[in-house]
């Protein structure tokens, strides 16, 4: 059984402790989200899990067959157009060129990009378009574990909804697991089986929320109810310092 196991993970940048004693397990087919304040170490945690940073203390065991990463800041190749950017992941896996391009075009359309955008370079794309290209590049490789760093942050609600559905579909189809970061609690509730709440300075997990209803069967009302509930949660209020707002 494929899984990602993080045990007693602690990480420093220089002398600053960024992550402190993180523990969790991600099983096959599971969607796990990480929420927490900005600068709390979420991206760092994701990079460690994906092997982009070296683990210093503790351990990470990743037995997933393949992974793909959608970065927070896009990281598109500036000298490649939209389709060629999406295709790089497939080409790196050894896929044939025309096959890779066909798949890339298909997913680009599904991600709401238009044919006239296909030949544009990243410099001519909007922030949300770049984000979609970055996301599509990762998803199109059909990894068994997908890392997503705030993939929806620059998108409008309509696009978000479409992409949620798309993501859940391919999740089911390929039994894909997802580890993703978001600032949107409602989004986390909509998609995840488990939510890790990461408190800052240094980043540590203060609470885990679990949702048993399968994520493709969650109705709007369920999501609103749970969102209202989670916003009352003491740990959430504490971590995001929501109470100080009320005092003002």
């Amino acid at each position, binding site marked *: 059984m494929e899984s990602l196991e993080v045990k007693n993970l602690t990480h420093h940048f220089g002398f600053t402790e960024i992550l402190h004693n993180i523990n969790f397990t991600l099983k096959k087919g599971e969607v796990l989200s990480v929420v927490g304040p900005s600068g709390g170490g979420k991206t760092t945690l994701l990079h460690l899990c*994906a*092997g*982009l940073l070296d683990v210093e203390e503790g351990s990470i065991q990743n037995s997933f067959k393949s*992974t*793909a*990463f959608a*970065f927070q*800041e896009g*990281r598109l*190749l*500036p*000298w*490649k157009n939209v389709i060629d950017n999406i295709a*790089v*992941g497939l*080409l*790196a*896996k050894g896929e044939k060129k025309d096959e890779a391009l066909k798949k890339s075009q298909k997913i680009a359309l599904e991600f709401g990009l238009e044919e006239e955008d296909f030949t544009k*370079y*990243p*410099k001519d794309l909007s922030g949300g378009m770049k984000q979609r290209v970055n996301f599509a*590049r990762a998803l199109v*490789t059909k990894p068994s574990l997908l890392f997503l760093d705030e993939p929806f942050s620059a998108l409008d609600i309509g696009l978000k909804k479409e992409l949620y559905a798309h993501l859940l579909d391919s999740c089911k189809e390929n039994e894909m697991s997802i580890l993703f970061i978001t600032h949107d609690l409602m989004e986390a509730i909509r998609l995840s089986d488990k939510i890790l709440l990461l408190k800052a300075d240094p980043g540590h997990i203060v609470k885990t929320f679990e949702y048993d209803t399968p994520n493709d069967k969650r109705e709007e009302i369920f999501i609103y109810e749970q969102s209202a509930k989670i916003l009352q949660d003491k740990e959430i209020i504490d971590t995001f310092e929501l109470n100080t707002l009320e005092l003002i």
Partner: protein
Amino acid sequence: MKFLFKILKDFPAYLWSGWGAIASTLLFIALWDLGNQVYGNLVLPSPLETFKTLYIMLQDKDVWQQIDITLYRASVGFGLSLLFGSILGLIAGFFATASMMSRPIVTILVGMPPIAWIVLAMIWFGMGDETVIFTVVVASFPIIFVGALQGTRTLDGDLKEMAESFGFTWYMKFFDVYFPHIFSYIFPAWVSGLGMAWKIVIMAELLATSDGMGAELAIARSQLDTPTALALVTIMITSLMFIEYIVLEPIKREVELWRA
């Protein structure tokens, strides 16, 4: 191949955009003619006279031979700079120590006036091809070296990480991640290196040889033959403009479409 085709396809549009350049060239010639009317034929022969002289010169086999000699020296010097400047610059860029060590050397090479090099080269190599080629190399090598070095040093670490995360092959890393970035630095350096080589070759010939276009220029000067001097200058300028605007610029445009 597809790429070459695209360059050719966009070429007419590029030429069309050259109207402005043609207009300013004609304006320049008009001013030149005005200068001739003010200062007289000895100081500044009219454009017409210059072009006539040029026309007669171009009929002469000997002139072509001189042009050949100069071209040969410039291309050997520039070719050497291109080869070694690019390769050494890349190497220096990939290793932090090498780039630190090369810094003072580059500063010396860039900072030293070419005229001083010519004097040294004349002492070392005497009068002839070697002196000229040496000076050309010394002048254009550092430009290309610095271009290659900068290109390599400024590679984006985030993109490397991205390539890593998708498991790019060695081949893809080089051609899709490193090469386009480095090329966008190295290509302009080649262009300015070439311009430099062309200027220096004339200067070195003028001072250190008895053949080539520079030497012709020296002769024209000693005989106060201003039309010939100007005709020679016209040859030098048009040939450089041809290479820059007709050959290099279209390539550069295609290669750098992605640039903001």
